[in-house]
């Protein structure tokens, strides 16, 4: 990882305000293709100047836990009119691909939670704290979580509560508890609730004997009870106040929180999170890399084909969609700066994450995405969190043993699927799985066969309209065929 952030002052016009960065009025993120800048208020700039001198903060940056940041206020181009309205400008290390918590596996969210707790504990022992605790403040570099929201650091005054507690519970603790204690994948809940899971809702999901699991009674049920009590009190007050504008508001609840209270809570949460395990971890972990229907010879032929075309050029970004165990993602690794490994199966992605995390400098980023319903544009004005395809453009897409799932299982017309692959903008290595293949026959077993057009001839006809077929090879005795297609 670089220790300084390269900054050029050209391409002024290409800098645009990040549509997801607006909640903290003290700063805003601006992006171009090559860099990430952050306009900061005088208060946020002062905080940055102070914290960048702190040893603990420098250690966090050196360890790759906090994003590398430089003050570039003096070198900002005069053409950056918007940026010049801010008191200062910071430049951040570029994160290869922005991902969201609803695309992360259990292990990823757990590591992101532990990173947050690590940082808060270090900060608080040095007179600083994080003012919020959003899971969106964590991104991934080399399969390691990295904290990106520098203005979140603020001075800690002893006596203050940890204000990020509620957000930590909603965005990290409750989703992890749902998976660890109930086996429920949190992705869909986090995708529809961008603020996380509310304590009252979490209490309904984590009821019964689950109340006895570590941390559930205090962090979920007590929290929900307190929220409901406060809501009742405030509702009564609001009814009283609606009569006139002269009513007197009751004072907000204040209690002095000693350092021991805050540190004790954080350390308690750390023990709770560390002990949580995904129920998936206990199954089929020994079968790594054997989850396919190939003989050794056919698999080697497929690997050779992928390496032959992946190695033809050094690429910035490769997407492996339907990556399963990530075998083919790793084959592309020497020829790509970043490999985004996508699969709809949470278990496969969690397994891949643990595998990659153990490797030094892995270039893979495993993400859980259902490819027939990829992450959409959503949030405020439908722009706060971006659709998968809006966050990066792959130069090469691997689409191996996926098309039968899309066309037969998900009922996506083949021409639609080919068009979508073309819109991704990169060259394509794609494996066509014919209707006579055992895996396709399994998918067809309980369906009305309405897939007469699902033939290799029709497939070749469709791809030839949008790509140039450079190379192809039959696999599995002709039941499958792999292609290298050049985008045009």
């Amino acid at each position, binding site marked *: 990882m670089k220790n300084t952030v390269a900054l050029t002052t050209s391409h002024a016009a290409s800098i645009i305000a990040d549509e997801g960065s607006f909640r903290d009025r003290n700063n805003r993120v601006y992006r171009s293709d090559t860099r990430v800048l952050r306009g900061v208020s005088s208060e946020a700039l002062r905080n940055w100047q102070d914290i960048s001198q702190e040893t603990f903060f420098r250690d966090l940056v050196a360890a790759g836990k906090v994003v590398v940041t430089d003050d570039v206020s003096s070198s900002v181009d005069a053409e950056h009119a918007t940026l010049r309205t801010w008191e200062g400008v910071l430049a951040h290390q570029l994160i290869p691909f922005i991902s969201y918590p609803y695309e992360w596996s259990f292990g990823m969210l757990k590591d992101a939670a532990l990173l947050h707790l690590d940082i808060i504990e270090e900060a608080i022992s040095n007179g600083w704290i994080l003012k919020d605790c959003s899971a969106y403040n964590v991104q991934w570099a080399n399969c390691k979580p990295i904290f990106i929201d520098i203005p979140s650091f603020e001075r800690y005054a002893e006596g203050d509560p940890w204000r990020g507690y509620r957000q930590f519970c909603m965005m990290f603790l409750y989703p992890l508890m749902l998976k660890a204690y109930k086996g429920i994948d949190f992705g869909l809940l986090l995708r529809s609730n961008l603020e996380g899971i509310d304590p009252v809702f979490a209490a309904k999901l984590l009821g019964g004997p689950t109340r006895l699991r570590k941390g559930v009674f205090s962090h979920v049920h007590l929290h929900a009870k307190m929220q409901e009590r406060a809501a009742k009190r*405030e509702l009564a007050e*609001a009814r009283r106040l609606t009569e006139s504008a002269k009513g007197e508001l009751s004072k907000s609840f204040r209690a002095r*929180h000693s350092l021991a209270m805050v540190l004790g809570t954080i350390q308690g949460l750390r023990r709770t999170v560390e002990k949580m395990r995904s129920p998936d971890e206990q199954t089929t972990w020994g079968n790594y890399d054997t989850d396919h229907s190939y003989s050794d010879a056919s698999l080697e032929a497929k690997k050779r084909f992928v390496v032959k075309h992946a190695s033809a050029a050094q690429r910035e970004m490769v997407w492996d969609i339907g990556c399963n165990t990530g075998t083919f993602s790793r084959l592309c690794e020497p020829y790509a700066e970043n490999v985004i490994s996508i699969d709809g199966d949470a278990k496969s992605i969690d397994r891949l994450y643990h595998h990659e995390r153990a490797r030094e400098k892995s270039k893979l980023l495993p993400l859980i995405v259902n490819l027939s319903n990829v992450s959409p544009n959503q949030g405020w004005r439908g722009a706060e969190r971006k659709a998968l395809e809006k966050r990066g453009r792959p130069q090469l897409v691997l689409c191996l043993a996926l098309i039968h799932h899309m066309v037969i299982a998900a009922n996506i017309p083949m021409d639609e699927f080919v068009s979508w692959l073309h819109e991704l903008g990169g060259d394509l290595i794609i494996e066509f799985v014919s209707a006579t293949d055992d895996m396709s026959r399994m998918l067809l077993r309980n369906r009305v066969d309405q897939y007469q057009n699902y033939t290799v001839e029709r497939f070749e006809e469709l791809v030839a309209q949008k790509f140039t077929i450079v190379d192809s090879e039959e696999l599995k005795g002709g039941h499958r065929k792999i292609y290298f297609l050049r985008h045009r």
Partner: protein
Amino acid sequence: MRKIVETVSLSTILAFAMMSNAHAYIDPGSGSVLTTAIIGFFAAIAYTFRKYFYKLKNLITGRSTSGKRR
């Protein structure tokens, strides 16, 4: 009679309207501060106990107390 029904309906609608209006001003975070105070109270006892336990343990075993304990 019709007037009574109209009045009752109107008051009911108004009551519900005021209720939802009031709901919109509830700060869900205010219960969380109380929760951190209660959890923090017990956590502080455990934290202090652990701190002195390790200090005592290190004193007995002769180890340095500078190491981080969790």
